[in-house]
């Protein structure tokens, strides 16, 4: 069975089609959700829910298109929403402390060269935690899912310029956070 056949079967009510899709896409989907939620159990719940909802809306899906982008978009949206729902940000703001971040960014020119050890891995993971859910999502889309800015724009329904802005803001904040660590 290939993906197209699986979707055709699913549209006819044969859940072996869903099983094929789950087996094929669950790992990447849970890892994607985890990078945003930082909670494996929550990520699994989100992906489960998204598969169940896909099951109910599969009739509207064109099986000639790839399932993965459509599905991962829903996983990403759900992950961002779950984190946003329960977070009350005090001041994540780039506005209130813009000069501070600008100063940090200016000192962080060589951060790119440092991502090569477990320590750096830990630092990035901690820094990711401090990004807003939406910023985390664009970082995951760009670097984990390796989507181009145009693909990200298409999937999120935003203009390419908006994606560029979001991605740049996320990258700059990540750089600033890593710079803070490296100076410590």
């Amino acid at each position: 069975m290939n993906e197209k056949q699986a979707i055709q079967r699913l549209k006819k009510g044969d859940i072996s089609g869903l099983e094929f899709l789950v087996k094929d896409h669950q790992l990447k989907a849970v890892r994607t959700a985890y990078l945003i939620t930082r909670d494996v159990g929550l990520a699994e719940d989100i992906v489960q829910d998204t598969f169940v909802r896909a099951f109910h809306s599969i009739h509207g899906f064109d099986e000639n298109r790839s399932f993965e982008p459509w599905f991962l978009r829903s996983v990403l949206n759900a992950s961002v929403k779950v984190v946003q729902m329960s977070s009350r940000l005090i001041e994540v703001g780039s506005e209130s402390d813009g000069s501070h971040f600008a100063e940090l960014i200016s000192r962080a020119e060589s951060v790119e060269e440092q991502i090569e050890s477990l320590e750096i891995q830990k630092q990035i993971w901690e820094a990711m935690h401090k990004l807003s859910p939406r910023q985390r999502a664009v970082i995951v889309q760009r670097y984990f899912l390796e989507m181009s800015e145009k693909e990200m724009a298409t999937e999120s329904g935003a203009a390419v310029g908006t994606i560029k802005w979001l991605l740049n803001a996320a990258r700059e904040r990540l750089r600033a956070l890593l710079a803070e660590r490296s100076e410590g």
Partner: protein
Amino acid sequence: MKEKRMKDVLQSIAQRDVPENMDLWPQIAGRVESRNFLQTVRARPALALVLVLLALALLSSVAYAIGKVTGYIPGVGIVDQSVPVRVLAQPVVIKREGVTVTVAQLVTNAEYTFVAYAFDALILSRNGSPMCSATPVLQLPYGSKLGLLSGGGGGWGGEVGVPIRFETTAYYPPIPAGVDHVTFALDCVLPEGTGPENWQIPLTLIPAPADFVTPAVEIGATFVASSPKFVTAPTPTIETVLTPFEVDPAFPDTPTPVPSGSGLYLEQVIELPDSYILVGNFADTGDLPGAVLSTGSAYDYLPRIEDMTGNPVAFNVRDDIKPIVNWANTYYWAYEIEKSVQGPLKITLDEIDISTSDTVRFDFDAGPTPQVGQEWQLNLPIHLGRYDYVIDSAEMIQDGYLFKFHSGTEVPEGTSFILDIVGSSQERGSMAGSEDRRPKDIVKYSQNITYLVPPPTGQLVVELTLYETIPLQGPWTLTWTPPVK
């Protein structure tokens, strides 16, 4: 930031924490098997009586839901009062070594436990997080724990060296009836090893005061909707199966379409003492000339609301009454309106964003053994969407192909492309594209596609899809008449 290294880091973290052998299928199969059973019934008329009885039972439950007394707590949401709602007896503040933890609010009802807490006097440093990443749990007597369902995230900002406050909310499973003492437990507040650890904050629950929960009654959500008609043919659906399924009654799993197709749909009306909260969605049923772009922000696609005389009606967006999952092509909303307004009320959405797409396929013969660097001049005119393009060339690159094409400058920024080779998606690695608008009269595009296995060769069918986001003018309206008192 070097992209490959960043990708490697994220891959390592994901691989470390999410094991390869995870399997969600047993749980998912359990959740969808009821549908499978009903489809079997549907195909066997001898069992039709069972289905009819089941349908009657469902109708009864719907009827029961209307008029159901529930409750609303601003900032918390709708609470189920089928068991008594309990709250924190009083806010609890614990201070240790200069750090203060405050549990400001706890609400537990039949469906969930909501906790609002804050940390004070965290010192923001240049060295990273001012707090540890431990997740608090609710400890019940005899050692059992309630783990976080969602929440606990957040961020901070401010001046380095200045004390800051971090506050957040979290959702846990409901605290069992009869358990009136729980412990809010945190392994740490400050970064590990830098401050007091093992925080145990005792909390005492009491029945919610009589006026704590705003009484709310779900009333009938009868409405009239109108939608503009579009000439574009709807996407055909192969089969529609009506399937009873266990869903959150507040938010149907599949949005019910408005009678006239895509548009505003009212799902629920909550009556509070001084206001109504209208809960609904904009459902895309496939009859628009593109897919509606869903949004996670309650403030996108804000409508106009008018009273019976056409005067604007003020409303509050209620972001605490929304489904957790925002489903693609469905935009959920909840608006609170004062009871004093004169109905009928007309909600008008003037414009939405839709994603349109158009696909063209063309043949390309790469030959049996194409070499990296080999290039083919195609000069193939195509038409996509509202624009004309010319496919200039194809080139074999490492692990895939690069296609170059161009258009005139009438193509605006914001369009995007997906390139695919038909029949090869299973082994596809990545796709990427770029756009060059520097010439005054043409726009040059490059799209490449790579594979995890040797790329396909020979006679290929290439598929190029154009995506464009455009505003679609309505209006879509929904008219709701408040009940006569």
